[in-house]
């Protein structure tokens, strides 16, 4: 609030200073002629000086004097009698006062309101560094830690503290470097090794590289139950094409871990995705006839589920598309109709269904 008071004072002072000249009774005479007259008079003197220095011949000096004299006369003739304190002049002053009182604060507030950050305090570095305890500035602490580590590269504890922070910030190369430094100067530690592997994996866009796998293997050697290392090793198996092996490893990991562990959700999710992918692949592997049968079965299953009630736009769209591709036109139309009824509240969804029907060439019998 304090800052708005300061702004108010600034605005007030500026406007007051603007209004000031309007409050004075103006001296009459608003023309440049007085100065012009003095200029031409001094020019006459200058001509004499130039002549004395030989810069001007006598004849030319006479002509120049005549010219300056003519200008002097003209300047005197230009004098306009100024209007005094008349009614219109007072009205003009009032109008311009109103303009100042409104325009200046409005413009300032408009611009400052758009671009200013009145709630952000100053944060000079010295003050931030001086702060201690819980109000400490994370960025400053972090920068100080980095500086400390740059000066003391053998501080294993510091490295192992900063590494996970790098990892969370997405600075994977820095994280890998920090984990590696912690390991280089300290005892081998499964958590750090697993972290190193994870940082290397994430730095490689999720590919468990040979060096990452090495780190994970080291970790499992020290601690066979390390969940992070086991998870990534399973990922490595999958990436090598050994999907059944990967699924087995993950199941194994789940079985051996407490159900409330934070990471089980991630493992389950991964497992579910791998299994559904495996199912798709299994169908693809069937002979032609059997494959169609299997697909029909799946589609019918979906239809049954949707008929029972509910269903999202995505599910309905999948069903309609599947029916249409399988050549079951009547059933596709039926699905379109039911979907419209079910999704009636959602105008966008209805429109999407319509567009899909159009795209698939499903013409409804006009009611």
């Amino acid at each position, binding site marked *: 609030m*304090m800052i708005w008071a300061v702004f108010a004072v600034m605005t007030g002072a500026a406007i007051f200073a603007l209004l000031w000249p309007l409050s004075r009774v103006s001296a009459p005479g608003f023309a440049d002629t007085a*100065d012009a007259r003095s200029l031409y008079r001094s020019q006459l003197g200058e001509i004499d000086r130039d002549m004395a220095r030989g810069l001007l011949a006598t004849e030319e000096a006479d002509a120049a004097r005549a010219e300056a004299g003519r200008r002097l006369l003209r300047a005197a003739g230009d004098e306009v009698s100024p209007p005094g304190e008349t009614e219109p002049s007072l009205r003009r002053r009032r109008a311009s006062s109103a303009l100042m009182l409104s325009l200046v604060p409005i413009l*300032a507030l408009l611009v400052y309101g758009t671009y200013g950050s009145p709630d952000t305090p100053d944060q*000079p*570095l010295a003050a931030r560094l001086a702060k201690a305890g819980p109000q400490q500035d994370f960025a400053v602490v972090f920068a100080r830690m980095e500086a400390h580590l740059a000066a003391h590269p053998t501080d294993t504890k510091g490295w192992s503290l900063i590494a996970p922070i790098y990892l969370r910030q997405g600075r994977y190369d820095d994280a890998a470097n920090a984990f590696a430094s912690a390991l280089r100067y300290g005892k081998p530690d499964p958590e750090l090794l697993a972290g190193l592997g994870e940082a290397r994996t994430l730095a490689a866009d999720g590919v468990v590289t040979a060096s990452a796998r090495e780190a994970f293997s080291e970790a499992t050697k020290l601690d066979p139950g390390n969940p992070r290392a086991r998870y990534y090793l399973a990922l490595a198996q999958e990436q090598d094409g050994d999907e059944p092996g990967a699924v087995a490893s993950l199941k194994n990991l789940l079985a051996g871990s407490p159900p409330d562990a934070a990471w089980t959700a991630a493992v389950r999710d991964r497992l579910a995705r791998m299994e559904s992918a495996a199912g798709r692949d299994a169908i693809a592997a069937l002979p032609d006839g059997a494959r169609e049968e299997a697909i029909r079965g799946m589609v019918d299953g979906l239809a049954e589920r949707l008929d029972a009630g509910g269903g999202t736009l995505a599910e309905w769209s999948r069903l309609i598309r599947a029916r249409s591709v399988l050549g079951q036109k009547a059933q596709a139309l039926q699905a379109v109709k039911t979907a419209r009824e079910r999704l009636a509240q959602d105008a966008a969804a209805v429109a999407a269904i319509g567009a899909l029907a159009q795209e698939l060439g499903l013409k409804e019998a006009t009611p």
Partner: protein
Amino acid sequence: MIVEIGHYALALALGVSVIQALVPLWGLSRQDRALASVGASAALISFALVALAFACLVASYVRSDFSVANVFENSHSAQPLIYKFTSVWGNHEGSLLLWVFILTLFGALVALSRRSLPPRLRAGALATQGLVAVAFLAFTLLTSNPFRRLSPAPAEGQDLNPILQDLGLAIHPPLLYVGYVGFSMTYAFAVAALIDGRIDAMWARAVRPWTLLAWTFLTLGIAMGSYWAYYELGWGGWWFWDPVENASFMPWLAGTALIHSLVVMEKRDALKVWTILLAILTFSLSLLGTFVVRSGVLTSVHSFASDPARGLFILLILVFFVGGSLALFAWRAPLLRQGGLFAPISRESALVVNNIFLATACATVFVGTLYPLALEMLTGDKISVGAPFFNATFVPVVVPLLLFLPIGQSLAWKRGDLLGAAQRNLAACGLAVLAALALIAFTRGGPVLAPLGVGLGLFLVLGAGFDLGERIVARASGWPAMLSRARGLPRSAWGTALAHAGIGLSIIGIAAAAWSSEAIAVLKPGERLTAGRYTVVLESVVPRTGPNFRAEVARFQLFAGDRELAPVEASKRVYTARSMPTTEAGIRTDWLSQAYVSLGEAQGDGLAVRLYDKPLILLIWIGALVMAIGGTLSLTDRRFRLAAPRRAAPLAAPQPAE
């Protein structure tokens, strides 16, 4: 709170500038002195506000407040204090704030010079200036806000571009901006005069000191920029005909022409249309320079962070101010009354010739600078217009101008005697030719143009000296008479002579560049390298740590022939925050010449070293300095203190009661 106060002050200044642009104009059209006088107080207030904003930004930099985006992007807590300070304008946003700061400073100065400026002209000029301020304040606030905040604040800044971490940054931009912005003042006066329809000798006299001031600072700014490029960029060149340099050189040429045509206008009330046009064009060229440098059309050290939105904004400003003033000019210029007469051969005509040549020279630079840009925009072809183009076009225009300069300088007003003037310069010319011939004989086999250039420079210096000498010596006998004549000579005469001699000195320095030589070699400690008169011996290479950089420093012993000079150090630095390398040349000044050592890459266990012998190179900048001193002297001429000496002047005609 300091940051936000600065931001608000800038926003408030925008509002005040709008008032400054509108109300005095209304007062002018209604002959209302009270309304017109609002311009002066508005100018003072907006100066105070912008100065406050500037001080707040400086405070944020000095205190390393990285919650300000601009500070974060261009400063580092480990920088020495002086660079924390200069970082303020070492970037686009901050330098724009400096621009506006100087703009409002000029406005405040005009507002305060109540005695030397006619009231109507002052009101009109302040209104125009207010309009320029509105445009640039809006540009700063809307597209390039230096007070943008970051939350959370980063712990460390990204450091200033290392090339800019130099004392040159403390000097070059402020000087250059005073020059550029000073020309906005002459522009404002021109527009005010066009609006009011009063353009006469009075106007010329009121405007001349402002023009001289701007010109003096622009001269210093360009010279400083050139010297900075010379020692910082590490390849020993001092002028590259780079578009950015040309952008500052064009207003200088136009401003030089303007100074000269103003003289004619003041004396004879002639050349009005041309002078007004020049005043408009000079500032337009300044604006064009700003546009070219800031819009991202070009890339260079100067083009900081360029952004198309900003480019468009500046283009709009450019179109508005240039187009608007030219339209006003087209409408009003035909109404001007014809002024006094002068013969075809006279000082006035000589000044007209000067203007023709300078305008042509400016046009060649304009074409050489903008043609490649236009071509690239239209066809996508990149062509490079460099020294060869300018040597072929600019030099042939300037050489006759310079040859003619001493003669024009000694012509009489109104009607002169060409033969007499030529005769008066015969001695100077003869001496210069002799010197050139002696140099040709002495440096046989060397470049032919260099002695001729030196001769030309000498001609200018001697011509200026003889002209002064003649005025002091002629017809006076004895020292006391001469001394009193010297004292009686107006300061502007001294200024003219100095400025012209300064050009001569610069020309000598430029011509002598043809004798410079360079040598490159890979040196191991103990090995030597010779270029021209200088020999260096590599002593040692040692690492060194600065506040925010690491450097490899090479120490050299330096010999000029058999004479041993003080040792010289050259280094390569790496600034840690941006991990960007720079080279710091080692320069040893030997009278007016310099030995210049710069380092290249390390090769094996040796170091690539480049040594230059730069004879008389300092004269280039000394000449500019002398020109600026001349400008300053003219500026202090008593004629410009209009109202003050009115009663003291003994020669003035008796004054009737007013």
